[in-house]
């Protein structure tokens, strides 16, 4: 291990230069965000975002750390991180297939057959196919293994019925990894099986789910007698929980585990503060400075903790339960950033006059929406409570709570809810 350092090694510096060149070269073919603009909504510009990812993939900038046999660049995680930094610097939005790259792809790699690798991975990297993850259900949120969507064997196929929810990108996805219950007589974790499902198959219905802020980042997905060939099974029947854990492990890193700001960034707050603080009365400046200082410290603490996790991963470590701490702390920091913004904006924080001011840093609309996004942050991708259990039990080694549901057959009385 070498000494704490935020500078690139010579190799990393050379790689970074190459990435910058490539991004400049292909700039005309990439979606870019305007200054002050938040990440784009995939719903609105699906085709442009698919093209962006395809161009980047062809330039060797997608799947940087994936193995060559799966269509990746066989690079390091440090290189992967550099690409991420340079894309952000160039204001290229998140790749449209980020769910596929971050969660579904690694799951197919780990548990898929050679045929499945062949069929899916290269197309996933180029966003020829966009992917989604179909795990949560209305009656199984934190308690994912309580899911009720069934898959019943019928000849060479399985027939799926049920409902998923909180599915990001389902409205544009071509495929999804789908967790189902195939044996309700076994205990809840033992009767699950994972599939790849064609999102365009008959019987699949996607309905956007409107959130409290008015936007729709998620979908509900309904399955009515959807037939999935057995060749699309990921892992053995009854092994679905084990397969799902691969996906979840990767998800935690993706959501906040790397120390990135959730919600509006602390830099947005800093820009707003420079505009708003001097305009406040003196006593209010004192309080506003406290709020800004506190939010900045929280965001910085989370950011540098993310760097430590990324360092561990780049040294060959696996994403562990510590990533849950990043999401937890990121959520708390996001709340402080939002609170500080509200303190700076005062009435404007709840009373935006017209949509015209959205572009400005101090645009009340952005901060209003940010407030309404916050409650979801503390829930989606693992509630604060579930994350605390994970850290308490897997990192601190504290004993779990007694579980009465774990070993009972799923269809026994009382166990399905």
């Amino acid at each position, binding site marked *: 291990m070498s000494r704490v350092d935020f500078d690139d090694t010579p190799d990393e510096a050379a790689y970074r230069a190459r990435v910058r060149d490539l991004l400049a070269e292909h700039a005309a073919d990439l979606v870019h965000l305007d200054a002050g603009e938040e990440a784009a909504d995939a719903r609105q510009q699906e085709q442009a975002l698919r093209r962006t990812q395809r161009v980047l993939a062809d330039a060797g900038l997608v799947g940087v750390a994936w193995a060559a046999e799966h269509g990746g660049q066989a690079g390091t995680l440090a290189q992967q991180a550099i690409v991420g930094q340079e894309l952000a610097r160039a204001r290229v939005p998140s790749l449209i297939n980020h769910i596929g790259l971050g969660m579904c792809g690694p799951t197919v790699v780990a548990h898929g057959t050679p045929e499945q690798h062949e069929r899916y991975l290269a197309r996933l990297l180029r966003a020829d196919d966009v992917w989604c993850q179909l795990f949560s259900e209305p009656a199984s949120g934190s308690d994912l293994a309580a899911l009720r969507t069934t898959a019943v064997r019928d000849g060479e196929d399985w027939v799926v019925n049920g409902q998923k929810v909180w599915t990001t990108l389902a409205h544009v996805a071509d495929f999804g990894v789908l967790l189902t219950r195939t044996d309700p007589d076994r205990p809840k974790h033992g009767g699950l099986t994972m599939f790849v499902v064609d999102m365009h198959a008959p019987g699949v219905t996607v309905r956007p789910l409107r959130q409290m802020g008015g936007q729709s980042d998620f979908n509900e997905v309904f399955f009515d007698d959807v037939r999935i060939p057995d060749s699309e099974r990921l892992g053995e029947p009854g092994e679905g929980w084990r397969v799902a854990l691969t996906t979840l492990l990767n998800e935690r890193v993706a959501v906040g585990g790397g120390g990135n700001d959730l919600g509006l960034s602390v830099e947005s707050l800093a820009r707003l503060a420079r505009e708003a603080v001097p305009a406040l009365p003196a006593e209010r400046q004192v309080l506003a400075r406290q709020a800004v200082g506190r939010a900045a410290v929280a965001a910085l603490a989370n950011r540098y903790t993310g760097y430590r996790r990324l360092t561990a991963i780049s040294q060959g470590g696996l994403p562990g339960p510590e990533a849950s701490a990043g999401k937890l702390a990121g959520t708390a920091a996001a709340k402080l950033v939002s609170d500080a913004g509200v303190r700076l904006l005062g009435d404007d*924080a709840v009373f935006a006059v017209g949509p015209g001011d959205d572009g400005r840093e101090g645009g009340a609309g952005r901060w209003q929406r940010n407030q309404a996004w916050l409650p979801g942050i503390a829930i989606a991708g693992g509630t604060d409570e579930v994350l605390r259990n994970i850290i308490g039990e897997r990192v601190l080694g504290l004993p779990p709570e007694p579980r009465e549901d774990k070993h009972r057959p799923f269809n026994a009385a009382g166990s399905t809810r």
Partner: protein
Amino acid sequence: MNFDLDTDQLDAAAGAEQFFSGQASPAQARAALEEGPVAPGRRALADIGFTGITVAESAGGAGGSLLDLAVVAEQAGRVLAGPSLVTAARAAVLLADHPELAQALADGSRAFAVVDGDRPALDAVGADTFLALVDGDLVVGGGAVVTGQPMDATRGLGVVTPTDTRVLTPDAGALWARARDVALVALAAEDLGTAGRAVEVGVAYAKERHAFGRPIGSYQAVKHSLVDAWVGVEQLRSLVWWAAWAADRAPEELPLAAASVAAFAAETLERAAETCIQVHGGIGFTWEHDAHLYWRRAKVDRLVLGDAAGHHDVVAGLVLAGALS
């Protein structure tokens, strides 16, 4: 010493609950976000007499106390009713010496809003008569209202530019201050209702929703956060009653009580609403669920007549001036 509601007030609360639960609902608050009308609306509130609770009987009101109004306002808050009884309570104080206007407040023939400078005013939307303090005088008149995109449409927020004003009461600083304190108490009473309801909704869901083989309300993380929210609501209730009592019976205590209850209401409602969402998990942050409507009310109300920081500073100022000695 006796610190409880009397039977008349309990009856009034029951009647108000019945009225409001028939006339308003979170569903209507949701619809209001998409241009629906605010329910139950001014007409209905006047017809049942709620805009005149604290208007003198001689001016066509009920001549009731602020506590009488507070128990009704709590019920209004439970279903996110609008317009706010805050406006009625505040205007009634300002118009005490102007029976004709007070009568118009009580019978609903005029739609009042009270304006604090260029800040968004409560119930400005649809109002035709505006009360404001200009150069130390209480003025009344018409006004031009600019509406924005408020987080809670039931509050009828608008920035008002008064027009055609005339002086109603010169040198009205003290009157204005008292009316504002009364408004804070009424706002806190509405927030009490909203917060109490948000906790109830959270508790009910925590009993019913299961995870890992048992109701989520059996887990300490859920249970304790609901308890903390509930304790806050009960403490808020005590402050509301005290402040309303003080307005009627111990006016020298009103400034301390009003600032205290306003600060406490802002934070209690915010926590109750956020707890309600968090307890519900994913469903709690959907558009169709009621939780965000309580939350929207919390986010607006915590600023609408000043924020908790401002109220805490007022409390501190009174403490430094000799209160609590």
